[in-house]
C-alpha cells in the first residue's frame, strides 16, 4: 500500500456541550471545564450525567428547509453556521463546482428523537403514527446528509455512514476513498448525534452509564456519559491549509456486537493501517486522542492496543470526560479537537481522573500539556466491532 496524498482541512466547526465553536471548545479544554451535568430525565432514560447542547430548542431552520426540523438537524444547522463553515463551503463550491463536493456524514440515530415522540402520540385505537410525522425528513438515517446537502446548496454524492460510535470517523474514510477514486474533489464530512431516549435507555440496559460524570482511564471508572454534538470538516484535494488528514485506518473486531475484542486485534489493525497510509512510524505520532469511553472493558482493551502499537511513548487522553460520549458524532468531535491540539499546542489531559488505572501501559495524560506538536492520531470504535483511526497533522 502506498501512502495517501494528504487531504487539506480547509474549514472546521463544532458544537458540543463545551459550547459553540472552536474558540469556546479550546477555552473549555484549556480551563479544564467539562460540559457534563446530571441527567434530568427520569424513568428508563434517566440516570447518570449528560453533555447537552444549550439552546437547540430555540433554533429555527430556514423556512424552505423547515420540513427537516428535528433535534439532530437543528444541531447540524447550528454547526453549519459556526466558525464560518457554510461560507467556506460556498467558496469551495465556487472553485470546484457544487457537484464535485460530496456530503458524507456519520450518525448512529439521526432524528430518531422525532420517531420517539411520534410513537408516544400513536392513535390509541389504530396504533397509527400521527399524520404530521415526517419520517423521511427527520427520523430516517439519511435525513442528516440530505438536510446538510440542501442547506449548503451542494449537488455531489451524499450519504450517511452509520457504523454506531465509529460513524463520523468512518465518514472521513469514505470521503477519502471517493476523492482518491476521482469521484469528487472535496467533501463535507462530520456528523451529529443528539440525546434521545433510545441511546440513554439502551446504554443503561447494557449497564454502561456511569452514575457520575464519566472518568475515562481512571482506576475506578464506572461507565460512560452520553453527550450530543455536531461538527464538520471540509476536506479538499490540493486545498490551501497548514493542516490535513494524513492517514486513515479501518477494521472490524469480528468478535461481538457490543463487547470489544479481548486482544484488541481490530483496534491494533486500524491504527497500523492509519500509520501505513500516512507513511509514518509509531514514534512520529505526538498525541493520541483515545476513544476512551470510560467503560471498564473499552478503556482496558484500547490501552492494550495502544501499548502494542506505541508502547508508552506517546501521550494519550480521552476528551469524553469533557464532552461526554457523543456516539456517532464522536469521530468529528475528536477530529476537531485534534485540529485544535495541532493549531494551539495544547494537549488536553483527561478529566475527572483521580488515579490512572495502574494496569494501563499507555502514557495517559491527566493534566494539560502545552507544547507544539505535528501529528495526532484519533480513535473511534463502535458496536458491531467497527473501528476507525485517523491521523491529522501539518502538511
Amino acid at each position, binding site marked *: 500500500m502506498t501512502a495517501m496524498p494528504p487531504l487539506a482541512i480547509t474549514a472546521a466547526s463544532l458544537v458540543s456541550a463545551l459550547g459553540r465553536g472552536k474558540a469556546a471548545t479550546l477555552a473549555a479544554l484549556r480551563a479544564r471545564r467539562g460540559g457534563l451535568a446530571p441527567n434530568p430525565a427520569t*424513568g*428508563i*432514560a434517566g440516570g447518570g450525567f449528560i453533555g447537552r447542547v444549550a439552546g437547540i430548542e430555540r433554533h429555527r431552520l430556514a423556512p424552505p428547509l423547515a420540513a427537516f426540523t428535528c433535534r439532530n438537524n437543528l444541531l447540524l444547522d447550528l454547526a453549519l453556521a459556526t466558525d464560518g463553515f457554510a461560507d467556506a463551503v460556498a467558496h469551495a463550491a465556487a472553485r470546484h463546482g*457544487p*457537484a464535485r463536493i460530496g456530503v458524507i456524514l456519520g450518525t*448512529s440515530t439521526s432524528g430518531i428523537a422525532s*420517531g*420517539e415522540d411520534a*410513537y*408516544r402520540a*400513536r392513535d390509541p385505537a389504530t*396504533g397509527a*403514527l400521527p399524520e404530521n*410525522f415526517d*419520517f*423521511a425528513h427527520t427520523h*430516517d*438515517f*439519511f435525513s442528516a*446528509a*440530505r438536510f446538510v*446537502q440542501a442547506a449548503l446548496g*451542494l*449537488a*455531489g*454524492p*451524499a*450519504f*450517511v*455512514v*452509520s*457504523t*454506531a460510535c465509529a460513524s463520523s470517523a468512518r465518514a472521513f474514510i469514505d470521503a*477519502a*476513498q*471517493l476523492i*482518491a*477514486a476521482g*469521484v469528487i474533489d472535496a467533501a463535507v464530512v462530520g456528523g451529529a448525534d443528539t440525546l434521545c431516549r*433510545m441511546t440513554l*435507555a*439502551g*446504554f443503561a*440496559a*447494557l*449497564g454502561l452509564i456511569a452514575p457520575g460524570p464519566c472518568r475515562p482511564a481512571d482506576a475506578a471508572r464506572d461507565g460512560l456519559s452520553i453527550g450530543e454534538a455536531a461538527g464538520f470538516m471540509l476536506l479538499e484535494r490540493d486545498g490551501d491549509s497548514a493542516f490535513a488528514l494524513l492517514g486513515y485506518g*479501518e*477494521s*472490524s*473486531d*469480528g468478535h461481538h*456486537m*457490543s463487547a470489544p475484542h479481548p486482544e484488541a486485534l481490530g483496534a491494533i*489493525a486500524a491504527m497500523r493501517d492509519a500509520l501505513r497510509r500516512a507513511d509514518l512510524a509509531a514514534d512520529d505520532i505526538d498525541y493520541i486522542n483515545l476513544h476512551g469511553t470510560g467503560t471498564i472493558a473499552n478503556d482496558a482493551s484500547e490501552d492494550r492496543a495502544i501499548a502494542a502499537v506505541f508502547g508508552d511513548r506517546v501521550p494519550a487522553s480521552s476528551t469524553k470526560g469533557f464532552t461526554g460520549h457523543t456516539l456517532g458524532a464522536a469521530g468529528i468531535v475528536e477530529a476537531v479537537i485534534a485540529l485544535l491540539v495541532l493549531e494551539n499546542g495544547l494537549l488536553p489531559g483527561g478529566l475527572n481522573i483521580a488515579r490512572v488505572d495502574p494496569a494501563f501501559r499507555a502514557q495517559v495524560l491527566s493534566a494539560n500539556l502545552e507544547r507544539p506538536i505535528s501529528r495526532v492520531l484519533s480513535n473511534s470504535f*463502535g*458496536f*458491531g*466491532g*467497527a*473501528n476507525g483511526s485517523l491521523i491529522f497533522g501539518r502538511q
Partner: protein
Amino acid sequence: MMLRAAIRGIGLWGPGLFGWAESPPVLTGAKPHDADERAPPAPLLLPANERRRAGPAVRLALTVAEAAVAMAREADPALDAARLRAVFASSNGEGAVVDDLLKTLADPAAALGVSPTQFHNSVHNVAAGYWSIAQGGQAPADSLAAHDTTFAAGLLKALAETVAEAAPVLFCLFDAKLPFPLSRCRRTDFAFAMALVLGPDAQGAAALGHIAARFEAGEAALTPPRAPSLAALVAGNPAAQSLALLETLARGERRRLAVPLVRGHLALEVAP
C-alpha cells in the same frame, strides 16, 4: 472519472427470486415470474448464539452476502472472506428491531426498560457487524444509508473503494419488510436483497459481468427493468432498484442504466 470493476459473485433474495443460481430463467423471461415471498434461510455461518439473536434484516443480508462470496470463491478459491472488505447499504437497517424498541420506549408501563441485545441489534451496522463476526477477521465492513437513493450511494462507495484500495469489495444491499406502524411512512412491500463481489477490473480475468460507473450531476429517472413483472417490484423496496442491473447481468446484455443519487445520478455501463 469512470469507476470500473469486474463482478465475481452475485447473491439475490426477493419475491420469486430465491438465490442467483435459480434466478436467471426468471430474470431473462424464460420462466414466468411468480412473485411469491419466502423467508431467507437461517444464517448457518453465524455461531448458534448470534444466529438466535439475529433479526430479519441480518438474516436477509447474510443470505445474499454469503451466496455472493461462495460464488466468487468457486472461481477463485484464494479469495479469503475474512480479509474481504465489505460495504453494507440499507435504507432502514434493522427496522423491525427499531420499531420494537420505540414501542417499548413509548410505553410508560415498560418499567424494565429495553433489552441490551435488542439495543445493540438496532444499530444500522448490525448486518455488517454480524457478517464480520461470522468471518472472524479484521476486514473493514462499512454501513450506509441514503433513503430512496441507497442503491446508487452504496454501489458508488463500493466501486470507489474497489478502485481506491485496489482490492475486492463485497457490496451488500438489503431492506427487510418494516412492521406497522413504521410501514405506513416507509414503503417496503417485501424483503429484497442483493450482493455483488466486485474486483478490480483486470484484463482477461473471468467475470460474471463488468460494470463501469460515473457520478453525474443532475437528476435522472431510474432505468426500469425490461420485464414488466420485475419493473412492478421496483417501487416496493428501495433495494429492488438493483433489479435492472441484475436483469442485465442475467441476460448477458450490454446496457446503460441511470440510478438516481439525490441531486445527481449514477450512470452505469453494464457489460457481459
